């Protein structure tokens, strides 16, 4: 039985154990499993998966329902959190909520669990309005929807500034054999509200782990959402991240993705602009080696006039690692005066490393500014000589130059502790020592 068949046949057992009372959701899930059965996993023949084959990660015999409860102590996981600042934490272990590691809130904002949100009447209007509304119907999204059980539910009420950032951390432990997890997050930010989200998937086992995560984000008028994805998982863990963001007028949303680890990582990131004067920002640093594979697949759909989008992805690839960047910008006919910028710059450190970079601009309006640029290069020899002439050995000099190359992506990070953490992770990977300040 292949993985797809296993999932489809597991659905009945999942339904029987499922204690939810929401009939609407039950119908959505039943439809979703049918869709998954029809569509299946994306194959290499699909244009969007031409350079990223899921074959190698789908061949494992994953456990779909983790047995028993796995617990972790705070001291074991502290280093994976941004613990230097006060945050709300939503911690999941093997897909199950961990109450003793989490801190939730219902004070002006709701930062809690999907499982409780879908079962309580008070959240029903939000679930009805927003759940599964913007994730496009495809194999991976439908699969996630069918098995919707747990994840983060975040609702920032009108005119509210979340008092601290919210961390969503998914751990996989080594207690099971290989594991398949599907977090489902819903983030609704009402008018004039603001929140910052930090997300991380972390495997604590050498066993294979595959995560198929779906996150829907709704930013209402003048809302501000800053989303940080820290991807530094171990080499037996793979991640398919599907994040969809719908924005209303004058909202500002940014997503920073730091891809420094994992076996295979695919980021599907879509922005749908539904009003005017919207800003959508996507930035990323990819720094991988060995046989690691990171794919950024972005889409910005400009449907209304006077909006902006900014994309800036930097990649450094060593050994036989593979990078993919596919950035699509879609401008509707009525969406005049759009400014859309896209840049993807890459450094290949080895002859066997690969980057496939493909900008795709589909513009139907005639008064827009769209720019895209893609570079693939090696390190600047003159700069390398400058550093070496100061006594810095070649290896470290290369590290410093790579650090400098990726650094400007961090400028727009608004939480200094994240900036520091990423700086540290990058410096460590590059074998350089930094962090000395006057």
């Amino acid at each position: 039985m292949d993985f797809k068949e296993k999932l489809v046949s597991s659905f009945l057992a999942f339904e029987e154990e499922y204690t939810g009372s929401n009939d609407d959701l039950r119908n959505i899930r039943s439809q979703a499993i049918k869709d998954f059965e029809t569509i299946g996993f994306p194959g290499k023949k699909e244009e969007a998966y031409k350079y990223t084959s899921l074959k190698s990660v789908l061949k494992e015999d994953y456990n779909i329902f983790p047995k028993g409860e796995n617990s972790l102590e705070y001291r074991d996981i502290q280093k994976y959190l941004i613990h230097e600042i006060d945050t709300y934490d939503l911690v999941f272990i093997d897909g199950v909520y961990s109450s003793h590691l989490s801190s939730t809130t219902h004070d002006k904002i709701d930062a809690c669990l999907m499982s409780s949100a879908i079962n309580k009447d008070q959240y029903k209007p939000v679930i009805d309005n927003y759940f599964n509304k913007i994730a496009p119907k495809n194999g991976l999204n439908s699969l996630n929807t069918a098995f919707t059980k747990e994840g983060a539910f975040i609702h920032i009420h009108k005119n509210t500034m979340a008092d601290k950032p919210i961390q969503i951390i998914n751990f996989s432990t080594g207690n099971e054999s290989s594991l398949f997890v599907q977090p489902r997050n819903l983030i609704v930010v009402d008018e004039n509200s603001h929140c910052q989200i930090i997300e991380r998937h972390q495997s604590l086992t050498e066993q294979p782990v595959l995560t198929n995560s779906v996150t829907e984000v709704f930013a209402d008028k003048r809302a501000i959402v800053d989303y940080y994805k820290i991807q530094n998982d171990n080499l037996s863990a793979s991640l398919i991240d599907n994040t969809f963001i719908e924005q209303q007028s004058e909202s500002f949303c940014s997503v920073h993705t730091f891809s420094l680890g994992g076996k295979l990582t695919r980021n599907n990131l879509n922005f749908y602009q539904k009003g005017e004067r919207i800003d959508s920002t996507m930035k990323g640093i990819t720094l991988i080696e060995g046989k690691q594979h990171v794919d950024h697949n972005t889409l910005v759909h400009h449907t209304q006039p006077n909006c902006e989008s900014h994309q800036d992805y930097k990649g450094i690839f060593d050994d036989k690692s593979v990078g993919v960047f596919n950035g699509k910008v879609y401008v509707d006919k009525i969406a005049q005066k759009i400014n859309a910028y896209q840049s993807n710059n890459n450094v290949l450190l080895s002859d066997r490393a690969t980057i496939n970079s493909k900008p795709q601009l589909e513009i139907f309006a005639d008064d827009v500014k769209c720019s895209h640029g893609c570079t693939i290069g090696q390190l600047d020899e003159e700069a390398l000589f400058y550093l070496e002439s100061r006594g810095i050995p070649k290896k470290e000099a290369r590290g410093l130059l790579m650090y400098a190359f990726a650094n400007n992506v961090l400028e727009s990070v608004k939480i200094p502790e994240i900036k520091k953490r990423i700086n540290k992770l990058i410096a460590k990977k590059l074998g350089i020592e930094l962090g000395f300040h006057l």
Partner: protein
Amino acid sequence: MLKIKNLHASIEDKEILKGIDLEINAGEVHAIMGPNGSGKSTLSSIIAGREEFDQTQGEIIFEDTEISEMDPDERAHRGIFLSFQYPVEIPGVSVTNFIRTAINAHRNANGQENMPANEMLKKIREKSEMLGIDRKFLSRSLNEGFSGGEKKRNEIFQMAMLDPKLSILDETDSGLDIDALKTVADGVNSLKSKDKSVLLITHYQRLLNYIVPDFVHVMVDGKIVKSGGKDLAKELDERGYEWIKTEKAV
């Protein structure tokens, strides 16, 4: 300290240095002057170990050791410093972080531990004060958005921090106004000592009013064609380089 014998070098099969002989003793200040394209900058780069140039003949001996095969960082550890004509910008790496990395690389190469933070801070303060460098400047990204004068002053700051035996200043005066030039020259002069040597590469005599050389060499078409004392620089400034070319032809 430095002995260069019959040095030939080329880049992509084009010969740029055509037999250079030069000897610099401890405590001496030498200046190499010459028209554009004569090979002055190539000479300075090749002493510091730039790999793009192919050293086809000759020897470079630094403190009795042939260094032609050494990497640039190893030459730096032995005490050679090159101040660049166009210092490179390194975004995201502060001047302080950079100099700390460089100093510790020197120390590690000589079997020493990293410099303790307080000692480093003290040294940074001392040298930056000496060169009139603002503390804020030190936390800025290396050379990023620096003016021409700031870049050159930063080069001299690094030189002061690394305390080299042989300092090569490649066109350090270019792009500097008179005040910046004075500050840079004061910095270099304050670092002079009887066991340190300086090699100035310059197009104009101007810098030599402030850093007075013991010897002046004129380089034309990849060769040193005339050597003399500091008065030679003045003569060059008044008469240009043509007369030397003519004299040589005769």
